[in-house]
């Protein structure tokens, strides 16, 4: 139990003393991708082999969250050198212990080889996937076993909290976060310091803070990875935020489809309580704060803040009109501040290293780093943390290694079901909040789905509309009925039953849904469709006029090929859109 801020550094010294660093440590990446690829088998093999050889005392074994490079899971990193072995099988383990751990030699066949150049990279930091990244939030992932708060303390954890509570006033904390230029990582990019200020200045008996961990955008998984790999960074950020805002109670709303995140954040919360970092008189101060964890129940709309609050209250998670904003009237009618997981995780960093340092990273209006899930038809899929302002091309080609299987880049989708597609002409776009919006997409929470010529854009637009119409909460008509209509039109087109007027219908419906819907879900739902209409109109024409799907995805059209006459009796007005 910590009752004084100085005890954190003393605790760190004690851990270092009690736990001398072993000469060699094998670090196993055990996030969701790792497990799905067989990391548990690797851990079992390592345990078996270390026991068999009597190496328990001399060789360390660390099981951590995701290392980011999902493509080469299951992977291990051998410290201190940082040798990285990927796509392992349990049979590889005896050789690794024998050769690398005992004899200090690299096993060539297990190190990562660049498929383009054939060059092999033994050290993790040299691999092109990692070289261009700026890993600030994910830096400590290699050193933290999320089951142990001690590992976070060793990584200077909770020292930012001590600094905030004892060396800064609440206003100073807010000023620091504001000066750093941190913007909300959930998608809208609202300045975090301003949001905190709004909530703080409301007069109320109680204020709440919420961590939105209902990461629902398909193809996006950085938030749950932060919670799995470094849950204390989020909890520390929340405690600092609660102090700044004056909240005594916080909620973490986690998506149930991320069971590992639920588990790790619960363990971390319980440990923080036990150590006096949550609860009454935190670190001996006069500040009290505690966190409840709420597991979602599979509704995408809960990522929208007013729905999320309804869900915490135990009601149907339908959204409501704003204003009043949550800062004025949120959870149970009290002022409430909601931030996304990644936003909270940035807070300790800012407090610890200062706004001046932080604000040097990024672009004039978007500061810091951003984690993206780089997935789809990309050669090196995984989670990448990059400074704001990096070019799309650098992410896709330098870090991601370009397109899989020698195919050609067609577009990248950013922002999930709320975002849009960026075709090749945007590859030199510098990524930040404002540039992405200007280009007709959005940052969203950081999904980047790369597609190539084998992806049908009409089918993908249909896929997104299917998703949003299913996830619409049903409260307002434009979203409930409109998204369904759009989906039906798109289904028709992918079946070869479309007509040219459908494109104008999609456009009109989309634009009306965007202006008339109640919440962010409806207001952004037509984006993927409108964006494909803008950039890939000819694909729609192919489907409608020629009953052809060039990507070979729309199966109903494949069986139609060779037939000249359209299957339906509808009259098509050729040339109207030429």
């Amino acid at each position, binding site marked *: 139990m910590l009752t004084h801020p100085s005890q954190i550094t003393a605790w760190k010294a004690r851990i270092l003393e009690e736990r001398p660093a072993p000469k060699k440590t094998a670090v196993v990446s055990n996030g969701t991708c790792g*497990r799905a690829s067989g990391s548990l088998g690797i851990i079992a093999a390592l345990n078996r082999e270390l026991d068999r050889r009597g190496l328990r005392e001399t060789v360390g074994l660390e099981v951590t969250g995701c290392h980011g490079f*999902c493509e080469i899971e299951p992977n291990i990193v051998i410290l201190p050198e940082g040798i990285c072995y990927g796509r392992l099988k349990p049979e590889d383990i005896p050789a690794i212990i024998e050769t690398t751990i005992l004899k200090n030699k690299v096993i060539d066949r297990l190190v990562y080889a660049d498929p383009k150049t054939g060059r092999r990279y033994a050290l993790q930091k040299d691999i092109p996937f990692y070289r261009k990244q700026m890993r600030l939030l994910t830096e400590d992932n290699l050193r933290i076993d999320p089951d142990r708060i001690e590992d976070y303390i060793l990584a200077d954890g909770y020292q930012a909290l001590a600094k905030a509570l004892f060396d800064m006033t609440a206003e100073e904390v807010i000023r620091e976060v504001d000066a750093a230029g941190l913007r909300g990582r959930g998608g809208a990019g609202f300045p975090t310091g301003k949001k905190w200020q709004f909530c703080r200045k409301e007069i109320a008996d109680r204020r709440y803070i919420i961590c939105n961990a209902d990461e*629902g955008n398909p193809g996006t998984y950085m938030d*749950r990875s932060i919670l799995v790999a470094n849950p204390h960074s989020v909890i520390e950020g929340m405690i600092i935020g609660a102090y700044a805002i004056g909240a005594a109670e916080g909620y973490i709303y986690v998506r149930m489809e991320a069971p590992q995140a639920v588990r790790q954040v619960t363990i971390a919360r319980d440990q923080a309580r036990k150590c006096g970092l949550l609860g009454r008189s935190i670190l001996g101060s006069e500040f009290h704060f505690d966190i409840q964890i709420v597991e979602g129940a599979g*509704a995408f709309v809960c990522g929208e803040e007013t729905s999320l609050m309804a869900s915490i209250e*135990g009601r149907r998670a339908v959204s409501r009109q704003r204003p009043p904003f949550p800062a004025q009237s949120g959870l149970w009618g009290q002022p409430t501040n909601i931030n996304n997981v990644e936003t909270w995780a940035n807070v300790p960093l800012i407090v610890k290293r200062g706004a001046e340092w932080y604000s040097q990273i990024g672009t004039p209006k978007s500061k810091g780093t951003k984690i993206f899930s780089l997935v789809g038809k990309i050669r090196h*899929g995984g989670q990448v943390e990059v400074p704001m302002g990096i070019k799309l091309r650098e992410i896709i080609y330098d870090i991601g290694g370009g397109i899989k299987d020698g195919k050609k880049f067609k577009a990248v989708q950013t922002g*999930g079901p709320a975002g849009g597609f960026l075709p090749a002409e945007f590859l030199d776009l510098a990524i930040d909040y404002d540039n992405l919006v200007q280009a007709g997409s959005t940052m969203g929470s950081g999904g980047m*789905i790369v597609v190539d010529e084998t992806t049908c854009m009409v089918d993908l637009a249909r896929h997104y509309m299917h998703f949003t119409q299913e996830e619409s909460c049903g409260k307002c008509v434009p979203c409930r009925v409109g998204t369904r209509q759009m989906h039906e039109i798109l289904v028709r087109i992918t079946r070869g039953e479309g007509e040219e007027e459908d494109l104008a219908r999609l456009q009109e419906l989309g634009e009306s849904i965007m202006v008339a819907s109640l919440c962010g879900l409806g207001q952004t739902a037509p984006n993927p469709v409108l964006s494909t209409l803008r950039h890939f109109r000819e694909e729609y024409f192919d489907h409608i006029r020629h009953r052809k799907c060039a990507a070979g995805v729309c199966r109903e059209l494949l069986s139609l090929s060779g037939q000249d006459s359209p299957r339906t009796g509808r009259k098509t007005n050729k040339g109207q859109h030429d």
Partner: protein
Amino acid sequence: MTGLEMDDLLRGLGRELKDLTGILHKIQAECGHISPQAIRRVAEHLNITENELYGVLTFYKAFRLRPRGKHLVTVCQGTSCHVRGGAGVFDEMKKELGVEPGGTTPDRMFSLETVNCLGCCAIGPTVVIDGTYHSRVSAEEVDSLVAECRKRK
């Protein structure tokens, strides 16, 4: 679950509306689904009407009103899985099991469900069978995945 067991389970749990989803998660974890009897007891426990409870319960995808089969097969429908061939895997799984999503095979061996993203997007398409994640699944592999499961009984 008998009425007595249900009372035991509810005894330690909160009685405010905000406790509702947590309670439903617990019951489903124990029984596999939320039975009409469970709805009645939980409504009493929280002092709300069954209608109110039913409204919340059916809003969320997570809660099942019917018992599920012995094995639970979940196919990821996320965008990354979709562009990597997930739709083919999903169609094949529907054919293999002979049920639509949300359905259970007549022999009560398999229930088929979909999910919008499981967060292992870089290694999709992903299928989860009884909690075990299978990555990079191809449509051709579907029958052997199911056969393996049948063998396990």
